[in-house]
């Protein structure tokens, strides 16, 4: 694996795109189902709560400079237990990548190309993904710098053009059901926005300059992504109301359909473009983390030879992994929260705890050796 270096600004734009991710289109609906009108409060709460997890991932990189996540796992847990945990992480990355491809295919066959087979759209996306993976991390992250500006411009246009459609009484009364539904909503949002950011630990210590400005870059990107998501949530509730937001599968798409200023109408294609960009970068991060994990775990010399076979398997499985919408609704709400909780919170927390226990045990055993030799 050649050492590629990415700058702090590129880390910032990659984190911003990866935090938005799939939330741009689909998250507003289940959150409104869970907590009613107060979805925007849940977004704020989970953004503040998520800073703790970003600091945890940063601390993990600081404790082990110049090491991949898989190398960290092997150092702390040894060969056999570390092997099992590494395989779990690899399955997490590749399976989430398969789900992202399935999301793109399902959306485009639902709204635009209704009679096309899903495999044709997944094939197109995976060809682009293969190109990005073969070019490497540096090139793709440079393109994320440019495309982030495009995403910001499109989302700003969406919010500003919808200001005339706001009906403030949709958001009143605030905090009608108390704080427990907000906690439920923020748990759901955290599992989509923050816990998957564990894949940044495959990029962060080993490919960037190791300093506190990397932490600032990650936090800036995270806050920018959270701000965009908060505004999406707020505008969905203000313009559409709770019932419509909770019923539609793609509420932001319907929000974009409300824009009509004379000649400016039918601009929902812009939102699809912004969503595809952020989803592409999130999927690229998942696949990059998965392929780097496999090549670190098996100690391969060239990680680019396995890109084509893995993406071939992803293409075949992309139509199997979500057999129906009811399965998607159940899996995304209940199983995904537990899944990203184990990979995004339990895994780094265990690594840090076991590392400190090992250090404490080493300190207590060394004074005994000194007394024995004296």
């Amino acid at each position, binding site marked *: 694996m050649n050492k590629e270096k990415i700058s702090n600004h590129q880390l910032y734009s990659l984190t911003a795109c990866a935090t938005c991710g799939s939330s741009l289109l689909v998250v507003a609906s289940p959150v409104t189902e869970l907590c009613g009108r107060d979805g925007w409060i849940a977004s704020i709460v989970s953004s503040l709560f998520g800073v703790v997890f970003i600091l945890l991932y940063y601390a993990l990189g600081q404790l082990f400079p110049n090491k991949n996540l898989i190398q960290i796992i092997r150092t702390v847990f040894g060969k056999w237990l570390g092997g099992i945990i590494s395989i779990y992480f690899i399955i997490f990355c590749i399976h989430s990548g398969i789900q992202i491809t399935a999301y793109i295919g399902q959306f485009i066959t639902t709204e635009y190309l209704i009679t096309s087979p899903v495999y044709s759209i997944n094939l197109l996306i995976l060809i682009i993904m293969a190109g990005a993976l073969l070019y490497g991390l540096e090139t793709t992250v440079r393109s994320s710098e440019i495309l982030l500006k495009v995403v910001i411009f499109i989302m700003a246009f969406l919010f500003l053009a919808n200001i005339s459609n706001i009906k403030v009484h949709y958001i009143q009364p605030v905090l009608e059901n108390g704080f427990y539904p907000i906690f439920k909503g923020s748990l759901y949002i955290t599992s989509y926005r923050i816990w998957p950011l564990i894949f940044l630990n495959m990029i962060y210590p080993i490919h960037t300059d190791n300093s506190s400005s990397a932490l600032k870059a990650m936090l800036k990107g995270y806050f920018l992504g959270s701000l965009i998501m908060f505004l999406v949530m707020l505008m969905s509730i203000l313009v559409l109301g709770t019932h419509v937001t909770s019923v539609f599968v793609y509420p932001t798409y319907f929000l974009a359909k409300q824009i009509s200023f004379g000649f400016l109408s039918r601009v929902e294609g812009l939102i699809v473009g912004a969503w595809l960009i952020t989803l592409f970068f999130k999927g690229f991060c998942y696949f990059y983390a998965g392929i780097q994990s496999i090549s670190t775990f098996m100690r*391969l010399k060239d990680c680019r030879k396995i890109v084509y*076979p893995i993406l071939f398997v992803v293409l075949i499985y992309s139509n199997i992994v979500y057999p129906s919408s009811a399965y998607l609704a159940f899996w995304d709400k*209940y199983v995904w929260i*537990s899944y990203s909780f184990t990979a995004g919170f339990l895994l780094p927390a265990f690594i840090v705890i076991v590392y400190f226990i090992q250090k404490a045990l080493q300190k207590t055993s060394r004074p005994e050796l000194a007394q024995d030799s004296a």
Partner: protein
Amino acid sequence: MSTIAIALIVAFVVILSIIEVPKMLKRCLYKELVLYSVFLLIGAVTGILVTLDVKIPNPSDSLALLLSPLVTVVKFILG
């Protein structure tokens, strides 16, 4: 329809191998060759079974089974 799909899958596997395998053997990358053939075999077999309408086990089901205690906790929290 299924014969076209099977022919496409086989053609992809053959063309990719003709291009990639000599390059890997020349640089003596044997571990990569093993992983490459394992994944390509999984993909080709699963692809042919999908075109013949055989039901493939879903990896999401096995993950839901593995995480079932946590899923009950989440169901209790989310109501």
